């Protein structure tokens, strides 16, 4: 099936004007499937880490949001063991006016601002609320252990 013009344009722009700290490269054999890396934002427990994600554009994209998942293990209240992300713009707040770029920026922002009140990983969120310093330390440790550059 032919690739919609929109996906071609988005890919071209991602290549031509990459977002600092984010890369997204489509697979050669499947231009709807992207290998993504996101650098942990500075001032966050994920600083110094580079996280791998996969991003897939479903058939009816952009009517439905891209499917994004963390491949690198990460300790975060809004990201579960399977790497699934709890982010409104990936679900009910998706709009076709958003794009791969804005979605990845939102995920990067989520790393900088974990939200334990809207958790996906309940155990992490619980710990985050009860003992934030310890949780942050675990997040740091995991970053060093799994997301080292």
């Amino acid at each position, binding site marked *: 099936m032919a690739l919609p*013009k*929109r996906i071609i344009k988005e890919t071209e722009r991602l290549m031509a004007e990459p977002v600092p700290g984010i890369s997204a490269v489509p697979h050669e054999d499947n231009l709807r499937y992207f290998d993504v890396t996101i650098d942990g934002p500075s001032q966050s427990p994920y600083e110094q880490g580079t996280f791998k994600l996969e991003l897939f554009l479903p058939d009816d994209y952009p*009517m439905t949001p891209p499917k994004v998942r963390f491949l690198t293990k990460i300790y975060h209240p809004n990201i579960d063991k399977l790497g699934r992300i709890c982010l409104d713009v990936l679900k009910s*707040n998706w*709009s*076709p006016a958003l794009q791969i770029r804005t979605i990845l920026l939102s995920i990067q922002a989520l790393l900088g601002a974990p939200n334990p009140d809207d958790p996906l990983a309940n155990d992490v969120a619980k710990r985050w609320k009860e003992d934030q310093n310890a949780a942050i330390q675990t997040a740091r440790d995991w970053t060093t252990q799994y997301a080292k550059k």
Partner: protein
Amino acid sequence: MARPRSKRGDLIEGLSYREKLSLASGVFMSEDATISPQSKQTPLNASRDARALIRLIQCPQCSLPFRSPVTLPCGRSLCRVCLPQPHRRENISYPNTPDRLTAVGCPFEECGKEHPEGDCSVDVCLSKIMETIHDVVNSCEPVPGDTPAKLWEIGTGSNPGNAGLRDQYSEHVHFGGRLLSMFAMAVMGHLNYHAEAEFSSLSNEGDDYQTMDDAVLGRLRETTHKELDCHVCYNMMYDPVTTPCGHTFCRKCLARVLDHSTHCPMCRRTLPIPPSLEQQPSNVRLVSLLQGLCPELVASRAEAVVAEEQLEMGEMDTRLFVCTLAFPSMPTFLHIFEPRYRLMIRRSLEGNRQFGMLTYNQHGVSQTDLGNTTFKEYGTMLSILNVHMLADGRSLVETMGLYRFRVRAHGTLDGYTVGRVERVEDVSLAEEERLEAQDITAVPVIDSPMEGRPSTARFNDITQLPTQQLLIEGLAFVQKMRAHSAPWLHQRIIEVNGGPPNDPALFPYWFASIIPIVDDEKYQLLQTTSVRERLKIVIGWIRRIESQRWYNGGNCLIL
């Protein structure tokens, strides 16, 4: 231009969808004579069409270049400050939101409707275009002082009797060629929207400033082009429609968005417009701008839109709907609510108004060349007779069966099934006759017990009945059941499906449409290739019903 006022119920009666489509495409044209027919192929020329170009960005109310333009629900644009004073609306209790309690009377004569204030937002796209135009004009400052020209207005309302006569007081000297001069005139309020303008170079060298005009237009085209991209498909807008919140998308893109959500993709405001967009006019001014600046791109977009769907479908040129069992010449009523099927129905309406109906392969039976598909390979092509769009985007679709087909290859397009199909047809009449003769003259099969049934003699005699006799037996059975007031022959059902047809080719389809037996049995009819074969199947059912040995999923079927 005025759109036909929709009367209640005209969705179904009155105009056909096709007629409405052609009316809708009329809206696609320009609102006035700015665009002449020949300019549809060639873009407006910087010097020859300078007046028309400037008019594209003038407010028809105040004649100034648009200031925070609003595009009204009727598709016409004017400055926000040119909106008439709002008044309170009377006798309205629904939806009763604050922004709908007041309205402005549309100042455009062709419309004259009342537009709720909430629907009169600033047109974001047109506003951005105006900003970029001002930027371009400002970047041309200081306008070279050695490019003087004299301009004057012709044919304004101020001197109707002397239209065309030169009024010395309306003469102005401007610089920078036709476009910049006329823009300056418009900004100063010296150029009425409806008026023409004359231009006379005062250059000592006799320069007509044509090169300068071309350069200015080139830059305008380049900068405005960016603002004319659709935020959904990333293409240049095609048939732009502006929402009540002031955001503009291709008509097709917005319709697809509305299949999935009721919110504006840009601002997330709820869009109070019927999702089909059937009654939604195009943004007249943007259509004119696109047509005036880049008609060749508009034309190639139009081609691309058609080609895109065809290309994506490739050989899979038949839209398929896996839903229920349908038969040729019989009506099928559908309730469409899933976004992908709404899209499928809409595309059918834009195309030949047909799609193939398939039934589920519930028992996972392998389908000849296709393997274990979710659907059974034989289906019926349906033609859409009527679509009744409900306000929430659901629709009731009335169809009529056309012909049977078999799926040879299949895939998906935007979530729905598409395929390559071949028609399933009856053998020639000569062959039909041969089959009948062969059956009738065959040596009778002698009764032999089979699968626990006491006798198969009565089944086997079907084979030897003349085709016409098979029909008569079928009709007689219907007659008898009617006399017994069988619930499946209720008057309501007859009203929908019609009475039993006397055509032996069609009777089985009619019978299958109304008789309450399992679909697996009925499905056989789709595979038949002769009238006789179909009738034999039907009479087989009747015999089994009559012998009371007809079981339906373990329960004895009571007719």
